[in-house]
């Protein structure tokens, strides 16, 4: 089954990392992904720009309205995701644990099975 690992953490904290700190974290995270990628199990991975760059389209009384940002008054924001082919939940949890071990942001990883998957052809 394909799992999505959704990353939540405080954007304030992550944005305050220096470039060196950020590079270090990214390198460590890449390290974790490597063996999964080699095994052909890792699907698309994305890191998102800050929520301040986000726009939301919402249907209000049958009409689509475009508004700024996700407007979530939450302490943690959705910052990115991984997709990984796993035999069972334990494997997905293990992957998330490995990621969290090298990620100092103190956030959380939501593990969600994927229902529909349409691999895109666009390269970031």
């Amino acid at each position: 089954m394909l799992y999505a690992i959704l990353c939540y953490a405080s954007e304030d904290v992550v944005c305050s990392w220096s470039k060196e700190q950020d590079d270090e974290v990214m390198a460590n995270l890449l390290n974790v992904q490597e063996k999964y990628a080699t095994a052909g199990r890792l699907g698309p991975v994305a890191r998102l720009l800050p929520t301040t760059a986000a726009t939301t389209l919402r249907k209000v009384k049958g009409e689509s309205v475009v508004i700024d940002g996700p407007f979530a008054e939450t302490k943690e924001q959705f910052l990115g995701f991984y997709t990984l082919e796993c035999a069972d939940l334990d494997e997905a949890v293990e992957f998330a644990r490995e990621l969290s071990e090298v990620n100092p942001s103190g956030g959380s990883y939501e593990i969600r099975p994927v229902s529909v998957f349409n691999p895109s052809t666009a390269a970031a």
Partner: protein
Amino acid sequence: MTELAWISNAISTARPQAMGALLRYFRDLDAAEEAFQDACLRALKNWPKNGPPRDPAAWLIFVGRNSGIDAVRKRSKQAPLPEEDQISDLEDAESDIAERLDGAHYRDDILRLLFICCHPDLPATQQIAVALRIVSGITVKQIARAFLVGESAMEQRITRAKARIADAGVPFETPGAVERSERLAAVAAMVYLIFNEGYSTNSGEAPARAPLCEEAIRLARLLLRLFQTEPEIMGLTALLLLQHARAPARFDENGEIVLLEDQDRSLWSRKMIDEGLALVDKALRHQKPGPYQVQAAIAALHARAEKPEDTDWTEIDLLYSLLEQMQPSPVVTLNRAVAVAKVRGPEAALAMIEPLEQRLSGYFHFFGLKGGLLMQLGRGEEARVAFDRAIALANTAAEAAHIRMHIDRLMKEGAAKAAAKTAR
């Protein structure tokens, strides 16, 4: 990242919110700073032992406030009369933690904290220094290094500025809509000043001053988080990101300035450009243009051009003319002339800037551009005069060196012409 790095990161991230709330309680900058310092010390002791709190800002506010109240109580025991008025609201002090983290409050808290630094009596450099100290928590030593002055001189400057802020009194009331937007505009201008202070530099100083640009971006993002639907704050943040994206390409290995046209665009930070472009797109949807948005849109056109010759100078000319209407200034016209030279030729550009000579008589870039235009028109003698003026006005060694390069080229061309004449 080490545990200590994580803690110091969390503290500096929480700082504006925590300091803003503590200032609201104590209505006194020194008391707020003291309380915050105390809370930080306790965090350093407590967090490694008990693990990081879920909400570091809330923790620091809670602990800081208690320690601040203790300090006031101790002092009032020694003093003949109790000084209850040092605490904003005693009832407030006993209320539940949830109330303290009221979201609506904290937006105004942070804005107030930034706003008191923009006191109109303070010269711009002092506003910046005091904001970096109070809001960002940057050490005096680091600020002094960024401003290229001694530590004790900077210490004095900040102390004096803080005394003036204290005299002026903290604008404590919750601002109304008009007041809030005025505060926001003043604060945005200060953030822009911080950025420019870091940006106008030469290569030798760049490493010391780059943190100012990064701090300005951090503050702009903070403002944008607080005012998510303000197109001008989107514009400001975009402008800073798009300009800072070029930082790795601004100087060559000899420390010489590399002009926009000659920069290696592969060195530009793609990530910052993407974020900046996304923000410009978002802002423009509001159809409420303002100076930051227009400047960001200009920077976006440069960022979007893969090669210098792809630059849409016609659109840049239009945007500068819009900026001229919003914010008439000879410097804006001077910038517009660069685009005009590309679109309509050096003669039109020269005609545009000549009337500005008196007002820009002390401005390096005026004579640099004038010399360049004259050179393009083949008026070497006049170009030489303008370049000489530019060198005399150069702010940094790199600026002077850049103009000298033009002069050298003129000399060579002159020599070649003379040689050609003799040969004939």
